[in-house]
């Protein structure tokens, strides 16, 4: 009996101890699991190449890897080309080919309207962002805008000896025939052209005729039409005197020694944003760490390094402008800086851009 009692007492002690451990584990383990799921070996971020990806790597990807140990792979497929692949993967309930898309907000808005974006409204660092981080024209945060950019009028100072061009009308001077450049679908130019043509921004999208009238005048100047790398090459080769382009391209050319400056003409300049979003269909763990990456991108330290490389204003208050860009019109920070910048809802843009692109091409290729 004594033996039995001993056994029983020992069993009881063991059982109590096990219960205690299990209870303690039960109270802490689930919360840990909820907070930090298993880490993937890598996450894949779609990015633009050249100085764009270098800036992202230095500002966000490398600090993220240092902090989490997760390798970051940059997929340089063009944003337009990855989009149908991501859409098809989500529609077929396959794992999307990328974890995060670094995308123009306009393109990302299409994905948001289609319902393929994860909700990002629970990111802790969102609390410290400015209104710029919130996409316009969609509910919640299917996309988080990470910076803004301006489609400036870049010019060769030697071609404008009396000072920067004040208006897009200055480009109609016959001496600039064949020496201007625009994006081949007119993106960045539609809205200033609407003003230059005597129209109002309220007329977008219902009455864009003034825009097309002014585009027709510009067409008579036989401009070159291209994409970002073309503009840099054309400025470098002395083929053009002025171009409507994203300020980062002009800054990149200037940093490479090209004699180039930029301005915002009196008609204004299109202001837009880029953002990050996560396609639906990833495992819970991958989704968690992808969100962590975007959260990292919204930290002040990451924004400062990343956007120094791009020369663009971020979404965290108190960032220091890169050398030479303080007070620059392409680096708006104060409300007054936005007076001549034109920002149109992403939803209006995506609903009408197909028609705008066709109209611009019809005029330019007519």
């Amino acid at each position, binding site marked *: 009996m004594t033996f039995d009692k001993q056994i029983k007492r020992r069993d009881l002690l063991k059982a109590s101890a096990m219960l205690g451990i299990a209870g303690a584990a039960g109270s802490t383990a689930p919360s840990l699991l909820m907070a930090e799921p298993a880490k993937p070996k890598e996450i894949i971020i779609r990015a633009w190449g050249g100085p764009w990806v270098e800036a992202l790597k230095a500002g966000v990807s490398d600090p993220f890897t240092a902090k989490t140990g997760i390798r970051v792979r940059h997929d340089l497929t063009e944003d337009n080309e990855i989009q149908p692949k991501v859409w098809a993967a989500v529609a077929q309930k396959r794992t999307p080919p990328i974890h995060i898309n670094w995308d123009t907000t306009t393109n990302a808005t299409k994905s948001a*309207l*289609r319902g393929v974006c994860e909700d990002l409204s629970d990111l802790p660092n969102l609390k410290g962002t400015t209104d710029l981080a919130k996409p316009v024209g969609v509910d919640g945060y299917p996309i988080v805008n990470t910076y803004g950019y301006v489609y400036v009028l870049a010019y060769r100072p030697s071609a404008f000896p009396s000072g920067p061009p004040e208006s897009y009308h200055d480009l109609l001077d016959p001496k600039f025939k064949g020496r201007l450049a625009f994006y081949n679908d007119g993106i960045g130019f539609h809205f200033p052209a609407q003003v230059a043509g005597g129209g109002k921004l309220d007329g977008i999208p219902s009455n864009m005729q003034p825009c097309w009238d002014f585009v027709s005048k510009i067409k008579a100047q036989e401009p070159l039409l291209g994409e970002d790398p073309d503009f840099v090459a054309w400025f470098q080769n002395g083929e053009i005197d002025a171009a409507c382009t994203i300020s980062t391209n002009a800054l990149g050319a200037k940093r490479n020694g090209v004699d180039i400056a930029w301005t915002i003409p009196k008609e204004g300049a299109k202001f837009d944003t880029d953002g990050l979003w996560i396609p639906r269909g990833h495992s819970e763990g991958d989704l968690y760490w992808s969100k962590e990456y975007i959260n990292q991108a919204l930290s002040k330290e990451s924004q400062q390094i990343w956007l120094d490389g791009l020369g663009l204003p971020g979404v965290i208050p108190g960032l220091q402008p890169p050398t030479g860009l303080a007070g620059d019109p392409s680096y708006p920070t104060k409300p007054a800086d936005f007076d001549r910048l034109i920002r149109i809802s992403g939803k209006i843009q995506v609903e009408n851009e197909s028609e705008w692109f066709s109209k611009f*091409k019809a005029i330019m*290729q007519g």
Partner: protein
Amino acid sequence: MRRNLSSYPLMWRLMDMLEAIFKKIWPKGGGFWSPYLMLSPAILLVGLLVLGLGYIGDASLRTLDTSTFLFSEEWSLTNYERALIEPFIRSVIWRSILGATIVTMITLLLAFPYTYVMVRTRSAFLRKFLLITLFLPFFIGQVVRAYGWLIILGKQGIVNDILGLVGIEPLRMLFNYPSVLFGLVQYMFPFAVLMLAPALTAIPEEIEAAAESLGASWVETMLHVIFPMAKSGMIGAGLVVLTLSLTDFAMPAILGGGTQDFVANAIYDQFFRTSDQGFGSSLAVLLIVIGSFLVWVVFVLVGAGTLAMGAKDK
């Protein structure tokens, strides 16, 4: 009567080998079906193409709702109506057809004398030189070649540098319709020569000698003997150049500088720039229809040329 193994064509020997392998795997044999089984990989490949075409045809009948970026469940002809009504698309279609026709004519005009000299010359050096000149561009991709022309013909390019030496201001030779056609002719030229060469090689030299002995001048021999006999090769080369030019993407995109889109460029824009795969698919179907129609017209008017693969003309 079998003389020796090498007297059989290579293809027959290959088929015999395949049959032997098939018998090893399946000793009872497929009987009546065995030749058809050998066709199955090719049929499978063509089937995949047909499947893709079916998918494109289905997508072309669905319209995009830009408030949700989803496609309609129902079929409609809206995309086709739009393609035929929109002035920009109409101008792109006409530009492509006109461009393909001009490129075909110029390429054949240039390729004929080149091929003739290549197959008739008695100089081994000249023949080798012409062959190397012909094949070298094949090793350079179309996009790289187009960028090469940017370097050669650009405002800061080699040609303008040379013109500058004699005091001529830099000219803009790129980003216009002629530069796209020029790039296409240069790209299509080797294809045309390769299609023409067998046709010209098959014309015996004795026929030319006979024509001349009967009093025909060299020009008359060319016009009345060689051209008619080379017709099948000309048609084959023309069809290849026509269809490839009609569907080309890189030359209009790179040498056109965004101002000379062909249909393929418009399709790319719809698929990847505006995300309207339905409209892009309708343009793809139209391109197939236009290309097939042009080929059919050529078949009806002048026959299938070497593409008839030895079938006798009616």
